[in-house]
């Protein structure tokens, strides 16, 4: 494999469970050193895709290559070079923090002394050194997640795959985790992650694909996606009404596009303040009017008509 070839390459990648098609012939490529994301709501096919890329779930159709190797025949060789952080922690709760890393390192054929030396570094990195000898079970969600990440790095992987890395964590714990992932990225580790949080995708990903119902509906950098699929600014209006849909007609034309959500109206425009003045000029009196920048949430809303997190 030559150096400019993508590290991960999928074309027509498909996953079926019985009659249900979870992943519908998607194409993507991940380059060495980049942080690549799959953004989409729950059930979009992100986890199925990740499991195929992680060589733990066989593809039903299409072609998948990692490091130029075929998962169907070279699974163990590929997995030896991957770090996997599954959506649900698979830590052994009855073992201690360090034992979890020792045991896992042995799965990669590392010797006992190698694993012990590596565990010391990893616990330092994951800020778990003080908890090394404590059992996993009483640790906080954020600590468990950091341990899972530390464990996934035991084999010094070239690609780190994270499925919903911060789901269920409080904001503080998420920021700690993002910081660790940034460090890894700066050190040249390729990151592949799924998320249904647009802020996580914006924070971490150089490039991402938006998935919905098993298909890729858009691809690009967060900035490009926002430029292509949304306006610069968004004006959010809340009114004292039961159903915001009834007001949609009255704000039509005040921006490039209007989205109606159950609790607010979104007016897409390049100048939110100007649109706000027009709203007042039209005699409308919203309870609140907020101008903000477009996010990936807006991109998703525009592409699918639905919100990411419901």
């Amino acid at each position, binding site marked *: 494999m030559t150096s400019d070839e993508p590290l991960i390459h999928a074309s027509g990648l498909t996953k079926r469970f019985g009659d249900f098609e979870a992943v519908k012939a998607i194409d993507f490529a991940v380059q060495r050193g980049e942080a690549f994301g799959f953004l989409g709501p729950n059930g979009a096919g992100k986890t199925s895709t990740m499991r195929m890329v992680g060589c733990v*779930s066989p593809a039903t159709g299409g072609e998948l290559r990692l490091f130029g190797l075929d998962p169907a025949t070279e699974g163990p060789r590929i*997995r030896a070079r991957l770090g996997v952080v599954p959506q649900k922690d698979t830590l052994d709760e*009855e073992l201690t923090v360090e034992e979890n890393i020792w045991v896992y390192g042995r799965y990669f054929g590392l010797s006992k002394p190698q694993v012990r030396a590596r565990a010391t570094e990893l616990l330092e990195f994951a800020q778990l050194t003080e908890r090394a000898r404590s059992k996993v079970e009483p640790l906080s969600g954020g600590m468990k997640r950091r341990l899972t990440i530390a464990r996934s790095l035991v084999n010094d992987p070239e690609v780190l795959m994270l499925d919903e890395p911060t789901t269920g964590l409080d904001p503080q714990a998420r920021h700690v985790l993002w910081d660790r992932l940034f460090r890894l990225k700066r050190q040249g580790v390729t990151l592949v992650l799924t998320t249904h949080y647009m802020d996580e995708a914006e924070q971490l990903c150089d490039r991402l694909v938006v998935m919905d119902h098993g298909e890729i509906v858009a691809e690009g950098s967060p900035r490009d996606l926002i430029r292509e699929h949304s306006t610069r600014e968004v004006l959010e209006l809340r009114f004292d009404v039961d159903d915001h849909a009834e007001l949609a007609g009255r704000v039509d034309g005040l921006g490039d596009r209007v989205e109606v959500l159950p609790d607010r109206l979104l007016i897409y425009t390049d100048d939110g303040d100007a649109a706000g003045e027009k709203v007042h000029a039209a005699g409308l009196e919203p309870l609140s009017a907020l101008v903000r920048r477009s996010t990936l949430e807006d991109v998703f809303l525009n592409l699918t008509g639905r919100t990411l997190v419901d």
Partner: protein
Amino acid sequence: MAADPTLPTAASTRNTPEPFPRSRRWQPVFAFWATQYKRTWQGNVVSRFLMPVMFLLAMGLGLGSLVDSSSGGVDGMPYLQYVVPGILAAQSMWVAMGESSYTVLGAIRWQMQYHAMLATPIGVADILIGHIGWVASQIALATGIFLAVGAAFGAWASWWVLLALPLTVLTGLAFTVPVFAFAATQENDAGFSIMFRFVMTPLFLFSGTFFPLDQLPAFLRPIAWVTPLWHGVDGNRDLATGSPDWLHLLGHTAYLLLVVVVTGWLAYKAFRRRLVV
């Protein structure tokens, strides 16, 4: 963020692990179960001692003295020497079923340790061999302790009983492997209580452990012949009483091996269907 550690990674120091041959990949799986065992080994070993001591006292000496005084033992053999080789085999069945049911389903469903393994170079066959190997070592440990305790009670009539160790481990495996296959098809643990109640208990009572099979109605005997426990009981008794019939023993061994191989293939299928989706 106080700490600012830089982790040596692929991009900085490349310390690629040595090639890891397929033939060694079961070993870390075995090592994992050993690590888990270390947390509870004291209690485990104590109970492995108490079990045979209780049976030897109750069945061998208590019931045995009654049998010996009223009917002169079984086939002229003191009841202690008759019954204990059978209980030795039955114990391997308990250990096998106990170690192969909840732990296997737990590693699939609850703690998901198998899933963690499969994200690494470890494959389904390695998981099976490593875990079954671990259970085999537990059966060997329990059997070894039982042999020692039995010797202290004078339960063995012959040194041939040492060969009962491998035969008993094989008997245990003939339960371990099918239970692995069964556990991999279960959604919850309800099936296990049925298994203990309707498979293990009848086998324990009616496989010639406590009385000769000819005491059973003729139509029930074939059931004992096809289930693994009778082969272990009969083989152990042969060895322990010092009158080994080698052809019989060969037959028992071959049958138990067949059960292990056939159910091993089923277990591999069941594991793949459950874990590789």
